[in-house]
């Protein structure tokens, strides 16, 4: 008779930015099953949205998630503009895409930093977060806020990017590109990171299709889906860029996809800035009279994957029903595939590789003894476990 142990991760855990409880059922060191409890942060935004006007909903959905705070307004704007058949100006399209891509860069840098931390590479953590600062400074310059930018509205954007600011943005972007080179080199060429992340937390192509995973989680398993390409919106059809995919489906592939995507994002922004220079300053909104009755589906590619908004309008000034599907909602469910059969030390990084965002999904991890129900490990100990494993591998590599 083997003795099973439950390892809880969460509800409050440094591995996660937000509350959620994962229970890892372990036999010795191997994870046998995983269960989760969600709802620690349920704010019922879908219901709240029905009591707000279309202009107010933007501020509400922006607060679903602090890291990807522009992707929800983006998808909502797409949905409402679909109901009202509203075509926005080219300048607004470029500005929307610029904000969307800057957000992707800062979100991916944040993830690289956290992943480094879980592996015991605190230098990577410090670097990544340091390089993320200039991006946030750009946001402050463009929108007035480092986060929750309040840039979107039905029919366009609220603030213009004046042409005088373009050269400053270009300069910061070229700095970020250099820093990304440095970071990508440091992460991708490190033999310990290779040993630690390759073949860990594999998600096969079939798993991705079964769980309908999206974003970098799907693209790392060779499923080339990206809403920006498949169902183009804003300025994405106007610029040249590539969908980054990898085949392995492990933690390393996910890191690779994210790092390479940052280059694409930088390139998209640069092309959008070229576009901005060609269109007239100030033309950022179109006049919107009223939103007719009907239904609209809006999609946007957030840093973590596809955000989906479904809006039903009854002709009044607020949505009759507003359904929101954040990417983590489908991606987190894939833990059932990626974590089972792994050791506890690998489970933490497999969980983190999805870049789970709980505010979006609204849902944690700890170790309990399955027989006695006693807690045997907490979150910090889990991360220590992961860090120790990296240190051990490092030692072995050096000795060999």
């Amino acid at each position: 008779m083997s003795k099973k142990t439950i390892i809880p991760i969460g509800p409050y855990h440094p591995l996660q930015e937000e509350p959620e409880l994962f229970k890892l059922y372990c036999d010795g060191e191997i994870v046998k099953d995983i269960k989760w409890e969600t709802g620690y942060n349920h704010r019922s935004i879908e219901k709240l949205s029905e009591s707000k006007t279309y202009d107010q909903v933007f501020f509400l959905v922006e607060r679903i998630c602090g890291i990807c705070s522009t992707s929800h307004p983006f998808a909502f704007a797409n949905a409402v503009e679909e109901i009202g058949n509203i075509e926005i100006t080219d300048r607004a399209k470029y500005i929307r895409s610029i904000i969307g891509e800057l957000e992707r860069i800062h979100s991916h840098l944040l993830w690289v930093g956290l992943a480094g931390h879980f592996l015991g590479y605190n230098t990577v953590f410090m670097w990544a977060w340091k390089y993320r600062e200039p991006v946030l400074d750009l946001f402050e310059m463009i929108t007035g806020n480092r986060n929750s930018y309040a840039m979107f509205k039905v029919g366009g954007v609220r603030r213009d990017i004046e042409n005088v600011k373009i050269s400053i943005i270009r300069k910061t972007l070229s700095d970020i590109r250099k820093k990304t080179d440095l970071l990508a080199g440091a992460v991708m060429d490190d033999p310990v990171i290779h040993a630690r992340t390759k073949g860990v937390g594999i998600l096969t192509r079939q798993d991705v299709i079964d769980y309908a995973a999206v974003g970098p989680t799907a693209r790392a398993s060779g499923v080339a889906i990206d809403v920006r390409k498949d169902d183009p919106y804003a300025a994405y059809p106007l610029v040249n860029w590539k969908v980054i995919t990898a085949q392995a489906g492990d933690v390393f592939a996910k890191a690779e996809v994210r790092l390479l995507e940052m280059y694409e994002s930088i390139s998209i922004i640069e092309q959008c800035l070229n576009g901005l220079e060609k269109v007239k300053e100030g033309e950022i909104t179109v006049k919107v009279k009223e939103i007719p009755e009907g239904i609209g589906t809006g999609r946007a590619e957030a840093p973590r994957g596809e955000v989906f908004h479904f809006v039903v309008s009854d002709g009044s000034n607020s949505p009759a029903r507003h359904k929101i599907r954040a990417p983590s909602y489908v991606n987190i469910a894939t833990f059932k595939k990626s974590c089972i059969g792994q050791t506890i030390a690998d489970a933490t990084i497999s969980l983190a590789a999805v870049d789970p965002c709980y505010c979006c999904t609204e849902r944690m991890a700890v170790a309990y003894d399955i027989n006695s129900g006693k807690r045997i490990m907490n979150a910090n100990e889990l991360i220590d476990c992961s860090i120790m494993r990296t240190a051990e591998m490092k030692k072995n590599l050096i000795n060999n």
Partner: protein
Amino acid sequence: MQGARYKTKERGTRNEKRETRNIDTMVIIEKLKENFSSDILEIVTKNEKRIIVTIKPDSIINIAEYLYKTAGLRFIIASALHTKKGFEIHYHFSMDSTGLVLNIHVILDKENPQIESLSNMFNASNWIEREMHELFGINFLNHPNQEKLISDGNWAEGVYPYRKEFK
């Protein structure tokens, strides 16, 4: 310096090839009409990328199976609505090669809303069906594990917060 080394090696996969599936947007609608003519109640084409197909609730399994297995569509999510007609569910399917969002729309009974679960076919619908059961009180038949997802048993039984009251 390490970065430069990385770039020249071109280790990353920059793959631009898109998957091409044989079935395109209009073909799939024709096929649906052909195979499930007696189950389809209405087809509304808003534009080539947004199509709403209203079907009889009994046929959801067959149609979803056709879309998922034969046509290779991805299940995005399902949205439940409470309207004067009763309970409505929009199952959103995405055809990633063409950008099509196909809404399969069903209208369920006012008093006793229930429909077959899709979770035995693909795991993607597992959570959302539990959520709809919790918030709207729609019963999903043969669901592998229809427990509460959000409230973890903290809410009163038989109270469905997303239901509306109509006069």
